[in-house]
């Protein structure tokens, strides 16, 4: 099996036109494969929620400028980290983007005894937005070759926060 990491982007504030979570690979040889991406509503403080719309994008000729770095957690602590990868949110992505899918999102906080989309957004299996090839070796996972990135991009909505986790492997 391939060396695997989970990058977790916690409590990232929604803003219009914002990178909510990203992974960029700059290495000429290593390939990072995006296995799963999940969005979660873990906001516990009250907020005036709004409608958000998120795009999952893959960039080629990619760059990311600025932003807040995160450190992925290796699934085995002996893993050797990718040699030239960047993981961040809020950084400005560049390059040529392709939209893989869009996702509607409520940014309102979940509440106990509630059962609206805010609460359903807290349930992990229901909020996986990308898992191509997971459990099916016939299907390619999304690959990040040199100067390619995956970005969870918020196009609309500017209240509340989002958690994202990105599970990826290195080959």
């Amino acid at each position, binding site marked *: 099996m391939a060396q695997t990491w989970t990058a977790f982007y916690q409590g990232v504030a929604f803003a219009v036109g914002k990178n909510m979570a990203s992974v960029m690979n700059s290495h000429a040889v290593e390939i990072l494969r995006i296995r799963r991406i999940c969005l979660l509503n873990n906001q516990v403080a009250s907020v005036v929620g709004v409608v958000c719309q998120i795009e999952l994008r893959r960039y080629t000729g990619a760059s990311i400028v600025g932003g807040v770095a995160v450190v992925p957690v290796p699934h085995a602590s002996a893993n050797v980290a990718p040699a030239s990868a960047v993981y961040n949110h809020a950084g400005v992505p560049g390059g040529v983007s392709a939209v893989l899918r869009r996702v509607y999102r409520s940014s309102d906080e979940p509440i106990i005894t509630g059962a609206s*989309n805010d609460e359903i957004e807290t349930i992990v299996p229901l909020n996986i937005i990308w898992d191509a*090839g997971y459990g099916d070796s016939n299907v390619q996972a999304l690959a990040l070759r040199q100067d390619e990135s995956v970005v969870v991009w918020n196009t609309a909505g500017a209240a509340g926060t989002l958690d994202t986790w990105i599970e990826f492997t290195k080959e």
Partner: protein
Amino acid sequence: MAAKQTWTAYYPAVSFTGLDPPKNMAAVLNAHAAEVLRIRRVGIDNAYTTAVTGNLRLLELRRYTGATLVGSTAVTPTPHVTANVAPAAATYGYAGAVGGVAELLRSVLWSCEEPAYQNLRWEELETFVPLNIIWDAGYGEHSVQPLALRQDEMICLYLTFAVGAPGSGFLDTWIEFTKE
């Protein structure tokens, strides 16, 4: 087993307009004599964020043989690996005129009302990706064939019925497929 070259074709915000005749909301047509495209998964999604007078829509997932697709609006599939070599003779598009012999795989009833936050109705359930995969035959189960598109065969998500104004609402569709 090595993974096959894979693409995701994405058809964003396709209007539900045009019930006379009914409308192709998303299609993949393979015209190549040797290449086989296999449809791994099809997902639909309500990603609509502005108010709309929504209503019922009935979608049919169809496979066509002897297929044609004329005058559609093209989309460009995204390769899962940028080194993939695109299918040599495939068409990806929505709208336009579909032709051939249709075989119905399943129907899906859909609300085209916009989702709203702090709600959990049909429209909001349509926003969750895992709940809205409408085709995944053989995914993770190698005893089962995925739907194959041989020469002049097409998969098409077809709008066949609407209650209320046909001009309202939009649909996002993604089709994940491989080439062999």
